[in-house]
Structures are given as C-alpha cells and as structure tokens.
C-alpha cells in the first residue's frame, strides 16, 4: 500500500498576546492509500483543531508551531497560502464540513456551487463540461441528478449532506477530511452519508478518508483504523477491533466502555465512573495527561513525558502501564 500522508510531531497552538493553548501538541501518524482513519475524542481534545490544521492555512489565533505534514513526499507546512489554495486544497486535500445548512449559501443553486469550485482550479473548463461531470458523479453514486437544479433549503438534511460530500470531492482529492459530518443528522440519514463515503473510497473517487467523531459506533461502521485523542495528543492508534475490544490505553478503554448502544447485553453492562475533566491546555503538563483521572494510575506516570511506543505492528500507545499486554 502506498503511503499518502505522513505527519511527524506536528504542533499547532492557539496564541493570543496573553495566552497560549496547546490544542494540537505533537501528533504523528501515517495514512495509506485506500485507508479510512477514524479520529475519536471528546470535546476539547483537539480533534477539530487538528483537522483544520491539515489545511495548513492556520486561521488566527491558531498558529503553526513545529512538525511536518508530508503529502506525496512534500512537506506542506512549508508552502505559502497561495500555493496551498492553488494546488493542495481541492485536488489534494478536501474538507467536508459538519453543518450542510451553514456551509451552503441558500440563494445559490447546487449546480453553481459545483461550477464555482471547479472554476477555481480549472478556469478554462466550460460550464457545460462541469455540469456534465457533476451529473456523471451523481449518477455513478445512484443519487438523483435533479438535485443540481435545486436550492440547498429545498433538500432534506440527509440529501444536503450527501450533496455536500459530492461537491467537496468534485476535484477527486487524494485525502478527504470529514469532521463530524453526520452529527446533525438523524440515524437513517447518517447511515446514508456513511455508506456514500465508504463507496466513494472503494470506487477510488477519493484515495483515503479521515473521519472525525466522538462516536465510536460510527467508526466501527466506516473506519479501518482509529486514533484516540486526549488533551491535544494521540494516546492510542490501532485497528478498529484493537481499539474497540482490546484497547491498551486506559483512556481509550474508558471511552469505549462508556459507549451506550442498543444491542443485546448492553443493559447488563456497568458503565465506568471516571470523574474530573481533561487538563487545562494553557499550562504545561508534566507526565501523562490522563494521570489525574486514570483508574490505573501509578506513581511514575507523572515523572516524565510519555512517548508513543509500538506494541505490535501498527499499534501504538502513549502509556507506560498499558492494559492487556503480556509481561
């Protein structure tokens, strides 16, 4: 499998004149062609900041601090805004926003969004060509093409979000980043969007997908691998079944056992009781960031910063007392 994206010790902080929030604090990961990576974590863990950072545009007060993001071997953190807008966003990396209602101007017909997007990158392509291309895309994914003549508010929530997925990927991006793309939808529309994304990866319309959510059951349905984030860092990364049923980091384990799903046996399950809140990222933290809340806490957890270690191939954990490991 070809490696598409490689991120090394990437840091992006929110900086104002008086304060600094270490929102993304040293993230490393690799993404292969054809792979769907889920990023899971709770509010404030930095997962959305990380996803914005992948555009390398860093809207203030967000600021690039250090690290590299290699896309096809090129470190895109070194490119300037113009180069990024021209050659990265759209053809290489594309974003699917969370709320399709806010992302689409209600006074513009869907087909005109498509024309706008393509014209940005290929000014010479004619409107007819573009519309033809979009119709083909709709048809190949079994979606009604008359959506193109409608205004965003005329579409149901689920259809609007699926339309947004198609518009965001019209330039055939290599990597698509979807940040909670289904959280505003009911379960049936959510399923339609997830199926659409999965089919698009299979059909190679996009080469790989990063799916960000706080809901692990969704990742079970779509992802190949999961990275669990806590307090600005990845604490564990591994295959879906490893993270869900065989987590090594105590936080990943707690997150998983907190999931409530309607399946047999759930009513007998005891939910974990972890109190407290994640640490304040305005201050430097020594040692493990989950130490205060960790059910497995030991004295040496706070002594020094914890590095990611590889347990088995492709499975990394940021813990010195990992669960379920043979000693």
């Amino acid at each position: 499998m070809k490696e598409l994206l490689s991120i090394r010790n990437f840091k992006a902080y929110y900086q104002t004149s008086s304060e600094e929030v270490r929102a993304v604090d040293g993230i490393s990961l690799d993404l292969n062609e054809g792979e769907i990576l889920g990023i899971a974590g709770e509010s404030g863990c930095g997962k959305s900041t990380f996803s914005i950072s992948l555009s390398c545009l860093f809207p203030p007060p967000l600021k690039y601090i250090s690290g590299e993001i290699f896309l096809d071997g090129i470190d895109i953190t070194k490119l300037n805004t113009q180069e990024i807008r021209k050659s990265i966003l759209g053809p290489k990396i594309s974003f699917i926003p969370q709320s399709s209602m806010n992302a689409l101007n209600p006074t513009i017909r869907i087909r005109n969004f498509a024309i706008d997007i393509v014209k940005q990158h290929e000014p010479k392509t004619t409107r007819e060509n573009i519309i033809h291309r979009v119709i083909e895309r709709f048809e190949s994914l079994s979606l009604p093409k008359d959506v193109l003549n409608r205004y965003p508010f005329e579409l149901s929530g689920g259809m609007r979000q699926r339309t947004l997925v198609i518009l965001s990927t019209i330039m055939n991006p290599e990597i698509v980043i979807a940040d909670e793309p289904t959280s505003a939808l009911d379960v049936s529309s959510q399923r339609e969007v997830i199926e659409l994304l999965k089919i698009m990866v299979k059909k190679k319309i996009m080469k790989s997908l990063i799916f960000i959510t706080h809901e692990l059951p969704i990742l079970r349905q779509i992802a190949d691998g999961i990275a669990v984030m806590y307090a600005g860092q990845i604490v564990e990364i591994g295959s879906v079944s490893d993270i869900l049923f065989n987590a090594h980091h105590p936080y990943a384990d707690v997150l998983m056992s907190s999931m409530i799903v309607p399946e047999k046996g759930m009513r007998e399950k005891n939910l974990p009781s972890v109190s407290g809140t994640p640490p304040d990222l305005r201050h430097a933290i020594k040692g493990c960031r989950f130490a205060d809340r960790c059910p497995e806490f030991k004295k040496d957890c706070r002594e020094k910063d914890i590095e990611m270690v590889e347990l088995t191939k492709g499975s990394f954990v940021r813990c010195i007392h990992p669960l379920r490991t043979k000693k």
Partner: protein
Amino acid sequence: MYSSSENKEIILKARNLLKIFGTGKDSVIAVDHINFDIHKGEIVSLVGQSGSGKTTTAQMLLNLIKPTEGNIELNGIDIRTFQGRNRIKYWQKVQGIFQDPFSSFNQFFSISKILKDSLKILGSNLKSGEKDKLITESLESVNINPKDVLDKYPFELSGGQRQRIMIARIFLIKPQLLIADEPTSMIDAVLRSNILKLFMKLREVYGTSIIFVTHDIGLAYYVSDRVFIMQHGKIVESGDPEKVIINPQHPYTIKLINDVPILHQQWEFKLS
C-alpha cells in the same frame, strides 16, 4: 430498587393528547392523540427523531404549553386545575431538566442564589441555616463539593458540572416526576455515565419517576423500564425495551433500530 412490574401506582395519565400549532392550512399536528400512564418509580423513554413531537409532549407534561385537546392527570387531578398561581403546585411535583446546561441558568446569579431560589418553589418557610443544609446535601448527592461551586457563577463551571447542578435542583425539590429532555446529549460520553447514575440514584432514593425524551436509542435501551417510539406525533410502538428495541415489530421502529450504528456488528455495503 423500584421497578414498574412491582409498583402499579399510576401518578400521571395522558389521554388523547393533541397539539396543533398554527391554524388553517398552515397548521401542524405536532402531537396526535397519544395516550399513556406513568407509574411510580418508573423510567420511561420517549424516543423519536427530530420533528416527531417528543419535545412538544414533554412541554405539555411540564404544563408549559396547553394541549389543543385531551387531558393530563397528575395523581388523579386534572392539569387544568393547576393554572395561574396554582401552576407552582404542579411544578412541586413535576420538574424538568433540559438539554443545554448553558442556557438553563441565569448567568448573573451565583449557584448559591440559584439553588436558594429553587427552594422557593416548595413555598416553605425554612430558616437560612436549614436551606443551606438542604443545599449542601443536594450538592453532595450529585458528587459536587459545595465549597467548589456555591460562590461561582454558571459560566465558570464546565458543562458536566452545570448539568449536575441541574440535577442537584431535582434532589432539592424531590418531585414525583422528572422530565429530562435530552439531558446528556451535550455531555461527553465518559462523563455521561456519571450523570446517568445520578438519575438512577434519584429513583432509588426518592422513588422519582423519570421520562427521558431522547433520540438516543442506546440510552433509551439502557435506562428504561418502558420505551415509547414516536413518529409524526403518534406513539407507534411501546413496551419493554427488550421487546421494542431488540425485537421491534412496527416497520418504522425496525428501520430506525437497523440504522443505529452498534459495536458488535458491521453494516453490509452494496457497491452499486
């Protein structure tokens, strides 16, 4: 522990509840002739997608809006007798908790004042010392150290803390029935279990009946004695969660449950 099968005492009856918003051709039937009973100490979930009428039902049960037709009885007394000044008597028995812990509090009042004001609903002439004792007890019931919050303002607390203070209010008022409208949807999963345990404790200690209004089918399955599935203002299926959620019969329920992502089974995808 209370359970619905042992305890058949009915505290609330809803009969033929109908709510129509608007008039003429613009009218919308939000709740369409629904009927149910709530027993003492029972936990019931009202499950539905957005627009199914579940929140409108909750608002009628809280005596915040009037039904267009139909009737609600609390302990055998018609809800219409609790109007004007008497509404407060209804709220001594039936209380609500809402989704957004940010907008549930007045930002300009300290937690101590908010909780003291909540006691006014009981209309009792407690001395200041007794009030403080009750407030301390209620905060301890929800695992909050009173010293940490009493002098603070709502915006100084985290979402989880705020929602726990909402629940502390319930421990203070001790209503017969609590209507919780999406109480955990803005709380992180890891903290959600703590909040759910507090609801269970409320039932265990005071025999409070709870109606959860939610779109989260997993939650409904986990906490309820009975679930009601709502669609287009009607209750389409109701009963024991093992029956309704694991073996649904109504086509809408079947489709709904089938589309919820679960952990031990993967959806099949068809490549068209």
